């Protein structure tokens, strides 16, 4: 028995098993629950680190289990999967710490952490999936395990949001299923292959392949919140802050974007996709979503809703990068998967801190909040500047590569989109910063919870500071080995384009 064949499965199980045990724990057993959570996270991170080193040295980690006649459940660690695994496992650690602080004393915590672990399991499964049916399996599991978190509070608004979420995602899942089965009935395989596996098919399948592409992208576009399938995301903001932070900034939307990367590069292959003429419409849709999300964000007064529309816009960058046919833009798109996750989770953590400490939910209430919570707002500022694309923060790298890629392939209109969206980003983030730092604070806050000499509980403050620091770090150290940018280049070399 080869040990390497079990590592990917263990990575999945390292959050699944603790999750299942947590469900059965009584509400008050906080310590056992925390231990289990942290044990799961640390095991997972250890295994992932092992795989990163291995994959860098051309080592193969693959688990295969029989699922159906001629179809297997495949978990495989490649460069692309690892990028997403690191992102979700790393941010899971921080979010778990954050959630422990955030939910202290609130009801149904065993249920919350149980589903939280299931979500991470699903996300990691999505990342490691080695073929489309495995991907589909975990993608649906992600739907099922996030729903309880969206409706966690049990209020009427939460249930409505949950309903909307389900309508979108179940519809998306159905599209994905149909596309997958259809593809399978044509090709007889679903294995993700570098540079795609359908290039050998003849012309008679052309229209079927276009339909399949549309079905798959629709199914994935729901989670990636691609216009016009984005409606669930702003509503899902009723969920508790850690859920918005990890799931709606990272796991769920990224699962969609990640799936689109897989479909474009490792199912169709970028060459075949371009020949089918489907990449340009996708790029157009992504560009529209970027601008549309930014404009909608401008008009939101609710902080989390503004961030949600910003997410819609930012995730579309990833898709834009993929759909511009060319290696440089692709690097930009893939690396944004990582960068955007870091920056957006920072922003959501900070929004959660404001809500939890001062009951501030609206931007109009944020006057002078920088004086009361300087550390939180410092992290927020870094995240916001990163989103705008200011160097040396991570977001700058992305925009640089996207722009370069567009110029290289002669698609200059994309530069306009990038400039436009940066302006819009500035327009909806800078006023927040201005309010927070330069306006006079009100005489009293809606609620003011005191945490000794600290501005808020350490479990709430630490995670955003760490993620903000990393966001600056990956921008500054972009050309150091194992930085996300270098890793994205490795992915592009090994999996996407002919060397």
């Amino acid at each position, binding site marked *: 028995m080869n040990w390497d064949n079990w590592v990917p499965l263990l990575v999945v199980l390292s959050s699944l098993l603790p999750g299942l045990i947590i469900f059965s724990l009584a509400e008050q057993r906080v310590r056992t629950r925390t231990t289990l959570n942290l044990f799961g996270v640390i095991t997972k991170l250890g295994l992932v680190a092992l795989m990163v080193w291995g994959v860098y040295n051309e080592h193969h980690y693959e688990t295969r*289990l*029989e*699922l*159906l*006649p001629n179809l297997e459940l495949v978990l495989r660690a490649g460069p692309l999967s690892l990028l997403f695994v690191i992102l979700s496992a790393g941010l899971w650690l921080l979010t778990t710490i954050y959630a422990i602080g955030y939910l202290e004393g609130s009801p149904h915590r065993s249920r919350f952490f149980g589903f939280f672990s299931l979500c991470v399991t699903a996300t990691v499964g999505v990342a490691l999936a080695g073929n489309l*049916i495995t991907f*589909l*399996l975990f993608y*649906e*599991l992600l*739907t*099922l395990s996030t*729903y*309880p978190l969206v*409706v*966690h*509070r*049990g*209020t009427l608004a*939460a*249930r409505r949001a*949950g*309903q909307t979420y*389900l309508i979108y995602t*179940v*519809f998306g*899942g*159905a599209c994905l*299923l*149909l596309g997958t*089965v*259809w593809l*399978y*009935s044509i090709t007889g395989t679903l294995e993700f292959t570098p540079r795609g596996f359908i290039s050998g098919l003849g012309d008679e399948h052309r229209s079927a392949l276009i339909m399949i592409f549309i079905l798959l992208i629709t199914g994935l576009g729901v989670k990636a919140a691609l216009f016009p399938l984005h409606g669930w995301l702003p509503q899902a903001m009723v969920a508790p802050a850690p859920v918005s932070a990890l799931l709606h900034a990272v796991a769920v939307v990224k699962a969609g974007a990640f799936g689109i990367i897989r479909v474009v590069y490792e199912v169709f292959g970028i060459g075949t996709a371009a020949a089918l003429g489907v990449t340009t419409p996708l790029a157009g849709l992504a560009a529209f979503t970027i601008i549309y999300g930014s404009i909608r964000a401008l008009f939101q007064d609710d902080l989390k809703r503004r961030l949600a529309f910003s997410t819609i816009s930012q995730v579309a960058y990833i898709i834009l990068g993929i759909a511009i046919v060319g290696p440089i833009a692709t690097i930009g798109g893939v690396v944004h998967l990582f960068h955007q996750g870091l920056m957006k989770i920072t922003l959501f953590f900070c929004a959660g801190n404001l809500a939890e400490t001062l009951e501030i939910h609206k931007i109009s209430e944020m006057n002078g909040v920088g004086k009361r919570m300087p550390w939180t707002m410092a992290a927020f500022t870094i995240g916001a500047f990163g989103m705008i694309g200011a160097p040396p923060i991570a977001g700058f790298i992305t925009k640089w590569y996207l722009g370069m890629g567009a110029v290289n392939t002669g698609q200059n209109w994309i530069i306009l989109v990038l400039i436009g969206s940066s302006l819009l980003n500035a327009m909806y983030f800078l006023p927040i910063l201005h309010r927070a730092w330069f306006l006079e604070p009100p005489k009293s806050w809606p609620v003011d919870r005191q945490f000794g000499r600290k501005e808020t509980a350490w479990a709430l403050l630490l995670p955003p500071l760490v993620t903000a620091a990393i966001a600056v770090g990956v921008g500054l150290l972009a050309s150091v080995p194992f930085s996300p940018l270098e890793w994205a280049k490795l992915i592009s070399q090994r999996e996407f384009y002919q060397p």
Partner: protein
Amino acid sequence: MQDMFSHIPWALVLILLPLLTGMTSFLWPRSAATLGVATAAILVIAVAGLGWQLHYLYDGTYHHAVGGWGAPLGIALHADGLSLLMLTATALVGMGVSVYSLTYFDREKALRFWPIWLFLLAALNALFLSADIFNLYVTLELLGLAAVSLTALAGGKAALDGAMRYLLATLLGSLCYLLGVALLYHSYGSVDIATLAQRVEATPAVWSAMGLIGIGMLLKAALFPLHFWLPRAHASAPAPVSAVLSALVIKAAFYILLRLWLSLFGPLSESGAELLGLLGAVAILWGSIQALRQVRLKLLIAYSTVAQIGYLFLAFPLAAFAALSTWNAVAYLALSHALAKAAMFLAAGNLLRFGGHDRIRDLGGVVQRLPLTAWAFALAGVSIMGLPPSGGFIGKWLLLETALDQARWDLVLVMMLGGLLAAAYVFKVLGYIFTEADISHETGEVTKTMEWAALSLAIAAMVLGFIAVPLLEWLGLEQVVGISEISQ
């Protein structure tokens, strides 16, 4: 040890054991419950034993002439992959329901429940092992009567009304079937399926027989538009009975239809297959929409059965071109539906017992007091919706694949819509698990045994999602399909 295991005539055990313990439990009611659960457990072993024998001793088909008297005089038993499938479903659901019933019934009801329940198991097993169409009739009638008696067990106006409708439907169904049998016997002088399979031709008598048997079985299987009796009967019965009715009893009729289709009628009629497929499609849509409109939980689940049975009939038009993969899909759908639907009805029984009502709107407070039951319902729901990882997903995948291979877009569309509607009605219930509702006071006690019985069945439906390859190999449906293809 292994030698003994392989030489016990497990097929006979499957029929005689529940018959015997049924009578015993009637005579000694005090030990009835223990006896019942023990019987259910042994039946699981017996099915495993029969499967083992089919695999290693009999090369896929088992034939046994009881007492040495074969056709046309004696009673013959016949087992193959299809029988094994239904027997497996019966054994697993039977186990779950028996354990559940340990604490569900009060003393007086238990007195009546156990003997009839064991008779019902005997009738089901005998039906799945019958080699001739007359024995099928006898077992079908026994099954129907046992099922009606169990439905009436709850007492009260609603239960009796439901049971009455059920009785009329089931008698009418059996009568149609019997007329069909008479026609076939008159034409060919045999009731043995294998003999008939060699002799049937497309004569008016055979056509009439096919029509009569078809209508009778569709009525019993509650395929649209002959489903009118099902929702009330299934909703008004006691929880374990509802579970058995939806999971197993209607599938017995489906089994007969499929068995005769494969060996007698299928080769004669292509338009019949299309008609069955069409009715199945309408059943899926109609049943799902009705389920969505219900305000009572048990009625919702009952209408879901009307919809789910439709999937099984979608297979008929597909099977002509890809028999093995289609029937594999059907096997998976039937088995996972049996487990999941039983789990759902048992879970609903818990909620009904605990809260004293099954109005979906007011379930919030009840569900939150019974987390295990909520899990049972949720996991069963996943399988019913056909989402992974579950047996329902595997079945749906296989059926979709076959439909797409044949470019049957109409059926694909129906399946997709059916899945979406199923999600709608399952989540209509699941949404209430998370409401902040006042915790309701309990009106009846729900034991842990009852909760775990429901949950175990739901987990079994999940597990089916991971064992498709060995399970399909174990069933060995290619043998069954092979027979029908030779006769074509």
